[in-house]
């Protein structure tokens, strides 16, 4: 089963609030990672995002579940400026996960 989340519909054109992203991740993404084969975070139509938002949304998923999340999570429709932040947040989360389990 694939679960798709359209961030443009949830947050609008611009993604900025780190605290809001954290709450959304905990309540709307984490639960689906456990029960779905694939979760798609669709950034289509999002004009800009700051690092606070992307880190809060993405990094914690990998910090909690580790690199195995790579096989379940797909990022769709990212502008190049957003893609840089997403990959960076993935790396950060995996590093933090490794520190936790070490």
């Amino acid at each position, binding site marked *: 089963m694939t679960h798709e989340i359209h961030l443009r519909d949830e947050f609008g054109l*611009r993604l900025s609030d780190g*605290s809001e992203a*954290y709450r959304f991740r905990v309540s709307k993404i984490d639960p689906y990672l456990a029960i779905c084969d694939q979760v798609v975070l669709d950034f289509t139509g999002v004009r800009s995002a*700051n*690092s606070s938002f992307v880190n*809060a949304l993405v990094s914690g998923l990998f910090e909690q579940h580790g690199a195995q999340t*790579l096989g379940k999570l797909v990022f769709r*429709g990212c502008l190049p400026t957003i893609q*840089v932040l997403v990959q960076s*947040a993935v790396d950060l989360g995996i590093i933090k996960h490794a520190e936790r389990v070490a």
Partner: protein
Amino acid sequence: MLQIPKYINADGLIPFLGQLAAHSGAAELLVDFTSLQRVSPAGLAALAAFMARRSRDRLVTNVVGLETCGIREYLRRMNLLRLCGWEQGDESFARHDPRGRFVPLEPITHRVDDLGDQIAACIAPGGEDYANPNAGLYDAAWYLVTEMANNVQQHSRGMGFVAAQTTPSDGFVRIAIADCGCGIPASLADAGFQWARNLPDEDIIEQALVARVSSKGQPSNEGVGLTLSARIVDLMGGHILIASGAGSVIRSNHSVLKKERFAPGIRFPGTLVAMSFRRSEAADFEHKLHTAKELEIPLRASPNSATFQP
């Protein structure tokens, strides 16, 4: 007594912050506005944060000279008197349309994205429309304000304020954010960075401009908000000042650093970030943002590549 100087802008800002720092712990303080003739958004934000901290700490502050202050009406329009509790009740003055000119002091109490939209719309009217000539400036203001406001909410543990100013023609945009929280040196020391306990505060601030130096906690943070913001301002040919604790750092002219330390024994309570850049330099903001990200967080040949779909 805290004698507010005649000018709080440009070269007068750091000495003013030193004045605030020197009086931050006074149990009773008299603030005299008689001489004040000009104040930048950074001066306003710093003063509002200073007063918020004194109020939080239940320190007594009295004010004189407002009646004869030459820019009293400006201070009212910029919300300083109301936010500091020096004026209450219904407004008895006419507000000017702030769009394209200034952003009155705004407390960082509501949603960051709403705050970003509100301030960007003031600085770059119409820029929310992608095809508008102000779109680049709108995006730049939105990005810088939301990154800094997130830092205030997630790290400072104190009340924050933002103010801004611009001109309709190709003048400068000035954006300032100040908070009355724990400050960058204490925040990083609490996060477990040992070097933050040993270095002078101005060196700690400089380190905070390096990617991946950030207070920990949730939400997860990579410590690139301040780094990217400073680099973007750099790429726009502007300058950024960061004052926190006992030190300050100014970055301008493509990364030339000027570090200063306040007089021995005094600390600025909280953090002030003041940025300025030319309006026209923000026209290609998206390109500058991308360049800043490539410079500060280049995509590594990560063994953990995420899956991206068009």
